[in-house]
């Protein structure tokens, strides 16, 4: 069962085969949890959202006709779950407002994984819409078009969100890490 192809597992799950669905959960739990963790930020709530996404997927599977990839379909459910959770929580803030917190100067010692950590931290400060577009593009590997369809936003808006978010991250990375440290890590 663990080695069965995705199509087999999906069609068996759609007919109520829990064992097959268990394999899908095992396969996608990391992806779905990482995605909701990046969208929701809080680990506990992210886990709840990922769990809820799987339960919704299980209920909706008999209606899944395979027009899209199963993974894209699952991401859509997860995205919608996270976004509706986020909307319950707080009003959306603007990018400038969210990123307006001053940062301390560059640190002394720096390694590659610190760049990853810094970027993750700065991503988590982005407004929900920007963070979502960036996550769907870079982490889930969706195209601008797919993200636009999923989020019901114009493609131009999605592209602008991603571009602005990256520009902010670039500035923040430079502020926090400093060019000398970055150069050393990047060229090593």
């Amino acid at each position, binding site marked *: 069962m663990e080695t069965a192809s995705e199509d087999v597992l999906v069609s068996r799950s759609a007919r109520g085969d829990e064992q097959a669905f268990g394999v899908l959960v095992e396969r996608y739990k990391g*992806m779905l*949890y990482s995605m909701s963790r990046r969208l929701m930020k809080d680990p506990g709530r992210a886990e709840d959202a990922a769990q809820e996404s799987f339960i919704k997927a*299980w209920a909706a599977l008999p209606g899944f006709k395979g027009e899209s990839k199963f993974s894209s379909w699952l991401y859509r459910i997860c995205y919608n779950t996270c976004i509706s959770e986020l909307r319950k929580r707080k009003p959306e803030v603007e990018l400038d407002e969210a990123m307006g917190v001053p940062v301390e100067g560059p640190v002394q010692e720096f390694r590659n994984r610190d760049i990853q950590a810094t970027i993750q931290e700065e991503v988590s400060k982005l407004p929900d819409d920007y963070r979502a577009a960036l996550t769907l593009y870079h982490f889930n590997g969706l195209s601008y078009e797919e993200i636009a369809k999923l989020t019901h936003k114009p493609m131009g808006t999605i592209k602008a969100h991603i571009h602005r978010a990256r520009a902010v991250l*670039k500035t923040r990375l430079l502020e926090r890490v400093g*060019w000398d440290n970055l150069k050393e890590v990047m060229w090593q």
Partner: protein
Amino acid sequence: MREKGTEGQRDRGIERSGSGAGCELLRSRLQDYVTRELEPESRRLFDAHLVECGECQHELALMTAVVSTLDHQPVLDPQPGFSEKVMRSLPRQRVFVFSPWWSLALAPLLAGAVWLFRTPLERGIAGLLGRYVPVSVTLPALTMQSAGIAAAAVVGLGLLVTAGGAVFCWRAYLRD
């Protein structure tokens, strides 16, 4: 390597200083360059400008670091026991799962049905024998013994049919 600030580059609005129009053009398309979304002609201009503009090289290195970090975000694992929690909270579905065990369960049902309709079945068999078998065959009277044999034959046939069905279902089950 090309000469700094050749005519060809100036014609296209690209200059070598850190704040010229070339730099502006380049910075506005910097992300598309990094994510390889730039059309080939612009890409060539970009490359030519990069060779001689330190500031743009610097910008490019930074943006490359950002994009490549974003592209290589690690997959995070939920708490242990997450899958079990999900499976436990699935609502039970009333969906018919077509498995071999279902078809095996049909065997006694089929035998029972044949036993219930034994009289019309016996008549039908006698009729068929009368029509296609040239020699006149007299069916034994329905004694306890013949009824037992008939029932055993019917159950045997039912089992055979359902076993065939089971093999078919099992293959269908394995296939999809």
